[in-house]
C-alpha cells in the first residue's frame, strides 16, 4: 500500500548550521503520526518542509506517491492539507465565521448562505457554536486554536497538520483538543500529523511517532509511543518520554 506521506532522506542546513539530516519516514492513511523531540530539535521546521512552505537542500517528499518537493499541485493547499498553527493564526481582520468561510468562498461553487451554514457547522464541530461573529481578539487562546481547527477542516482535507496544538493551553483545554483530533481521525478518516512535546498528548493520541534528536539532528526512533517507551534503547528518547526519570546506562 502506498504511504499517504513518504519522506526520503531529507537534509536541511543554514550555512554551517544543520537543521536536519537524513530524515526518512512514512505516514500511513488514517493514522495520527507524531513528530516529537526537545524544543529546538526542528519539529516545527520539519512540518514546514512537509507542507511545502520551505524548500529542502536534498531529499524527497511524496504525497500519495507523487513528488511534491519541487512543485506542489494546484489543489494541494486547502483541499489536500489543512493546518492548525501554534497560535491558531486566525486572520485578525475577519470574524471566526469569515475565517472559516474564506477557503470555502475560494474553492467551492456554494452560494453565500450555504457557505455560512457550513462555516457555522465547522465551528459547532469544534465547540464554538454562537461565536460566529466574534473577532479573534475577543476570544481566548484555546478558542482561537479550536477556531483555527475549524478553518483547517473547512474543505475536509485529507491530511491535517497540527503544530504544537496543546502549547499554552490549560490541561482541560489541551485534553479537549486531543479528543477533537481523535474524533476527526475516527469520523472523517483523516491522516493527522502532529508536532508536539506534550507527553500526555503523545500517549493519548499518537498511533506512531518519530523522535528528532536535538544533538544529531537525525530521527533516532520510530514506532508507537508505548513501544518507544517500553523498548527504545536510545537514552535521549527514554529521557524525553519519562521526563528524565528513567535513564538507560
Amino acid at each position, binding site marked *: 500500500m502506498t504511504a499517504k506521506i513518504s519522506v526520503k532522506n531529507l537534509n536541511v542546513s543554514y*550555512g*554551517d*548550521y*544543520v537543521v536536519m539530516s537524513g530524515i526518512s519516514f512514512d505516514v500511513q492513511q488514517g493514522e495520527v503520526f507524531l513528530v516529537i523531540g526537545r524544543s*529546538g530539535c526542528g519539529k516545527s521546521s520539519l512540518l*514546514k518542509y512537509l*507542507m511545502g*512552505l520551505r524548500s529542502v537542500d536534498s531529499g524527497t517528499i511524496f504525497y500519495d506517491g507523487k513528488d511534491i518537493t519541487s512543485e506542489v499541485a494546484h*489543489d*494541494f*493547499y*486547502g*483541499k489536500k*492539507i*489543512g*493546518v492548525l*498553527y*501554534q*497560535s491558531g*493564526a*486566525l*486572520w*485578525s*481582520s475577519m470574524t471566526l465565521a469569515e475565517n472559516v468561510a*474564506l*477557503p470555502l*468562498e*475560494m*474553492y467551492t461553487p456554494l452560494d453565500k448562505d450555504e457557505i455560512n451554514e457550513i462555516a457555522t457547522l465547522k465551528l459547532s464541530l469544534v465547540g464554538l457554536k454562537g461565536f460566529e461573529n466574534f473577532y479573534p481578539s475577543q476570544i481566548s487562546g484555546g478558542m482561537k486554536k479550536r477556531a*483555527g481547527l475549524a*478553518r483547517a477542516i*473547512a*474543505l475536509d482535507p485529507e491530511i491535517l*497538520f497540527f503544530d504544537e496544538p496543546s502549547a499554552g493551553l490549560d490541561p482541560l483545554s489541551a485534553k479537549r483538543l486531543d479528543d477533537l483530533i481523535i474524533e476527526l481521525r475516527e469520523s472523517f478518516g483523516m491522516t493527522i500529523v502532529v508536532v508536539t512535546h506534550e507527553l500526555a498528548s503523545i500517549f493519548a493520541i499518537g498511533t506512531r511517532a518519530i523522535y528528532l534528536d*536535538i*544533538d544529531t539532528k537525525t530521527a533516532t526512533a520510530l514506532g508507537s509511543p508505548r513501544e518507544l517507551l517500553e523498548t527504545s534503547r536510545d537514552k535521549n528518547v527514554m529521557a524525553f518520554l519519562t521526563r528524565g526519570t528513567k535513564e538507560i546506562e
Partner: protein
Amino acid sequence: MAAVAELKFTSGNVAQVTISGSWSLREKSPHLKRCEDGIRSKASIGGIAIRADNLEAWDSSLINFLVKILKICESKKLKVDVGGMPNGIQKLLNLAMIQTDGELESREEKTKTPLMFLQTCLSIAFLRWKNLVQFFGETCIGFATFFRGKAHVRAREFLVIVQEVSVKALPIVALISFLVGLIIAFISVLQLAQFGAAIYVADLVGIAMMREMGCIMTGVIMSGRTGAAFAATIGTMVVNDEVDALKTTGISNTDFLVLPRIFALTLTMPFLCMFSSFIGILGGMCASIFKTDLTIIQYCTQTVNAIYINDFFVGIVKGGFFGLLIATIGCLKGLECGHSAEDVGLATTSAVVTSITAIITADAMFAMLFSSLGV
C-alpha cells in the same frame, strides 16, 4: 555584620576559605583578589575547603563570589570541597558550574575569515534579490490574473484599505500641505517683493505645489503613515503565521494582501496629491495676503493663469506612481519580515526609508523625463 571571606592555610596541603557575615547584592562583596592571590601564590596546596562560619544571610552575591573561587581552583586544577556550606548553596553552585552541552557548541558562531564573511554577504544579497524578483513576478502574475477576472481580491478588504489610506489620511495631508504652501510663500514673497514682483508668489506656489511639492509631501507622508502600516500589518501576520496560513489554505498572498493595497494606494494617491496641492495653494494664499497687498481674487486669478493642464496631469501621474511604489515596498518589506517583534520594527523602518528614497529618486527621473518631453 559585613560579608567576610577569609583564606587560611592549615598545616596540611588543603587551604580553607571561611565565609561569614551577611552577603547581599545591595552591598559590596569582599575583594576576591586577596583570596585569589593567596590561592595562586601557594604552589604546594592541593585543594580548597570552603565552609560557612557565622553566615547570617546570603543571596546571589555569595554564589557569584564562590563561583569565581571555583573557577580559579578549576584553572589551577585544585580540588574543592564545598561540603561545609549550606545545602542550598551547594545545589546552586552545582547548577552554576554545569558545563553547557553540545547544543551551544553547534549554535555558536564560528570565527569567520574575510572570505567566509564575503560569502555570507553575497548569499544574503542573492537571497534578497531572489525574494525581490519572486515578489515582482508574483505581483505581475497577480495583476494579470486580476485583469483576466480570476483573482480573488475581496471587495470589502479593498474598501477598508481605501478608507484607511484616503479619508483617514486627509487631516495630516492637509496640515502638512498647508504649512508647506505657507512656508514657500513666506520665503518667496520676501525675495520677490524686493523688485516689485510679489504677485508672482501665486505662480511660484501654484506650480511648485502642483508639479512637485504636492506629490512629494504626500508621498513622504504616505510612506511614513501607510507604507509603514502595510509593512507592520503584513510583518505581524508573518510573525503570527497568518501568511503561512493563507498559503496552506490555498489563498494567494498576492491576491489577498498585496493587490488590494497596491490598487488602493495607486488609485487614491493622485486624489491625495491634488488635494495636497490645493491646500498648499491655500496656505500660500494666506501667507501672501498677510504679507503683501494682494487680494484673494488677485491671487486666485494669478494662480489659475499660471497653472496649465500639463501641471495638473504631471501631479496625477506622479501621485499614482508614488502610490504604486509606496504600496509595493510596504508589502515587500512586510512579507520579507522575520519571525520576531524586532523584525517587524526593522521591516517598518526599512519600508519607510526605502519608500522615501524611491520617491525622491523617481521624482528626479520624472523631472528629467518631463523636461526632455517638454511637459
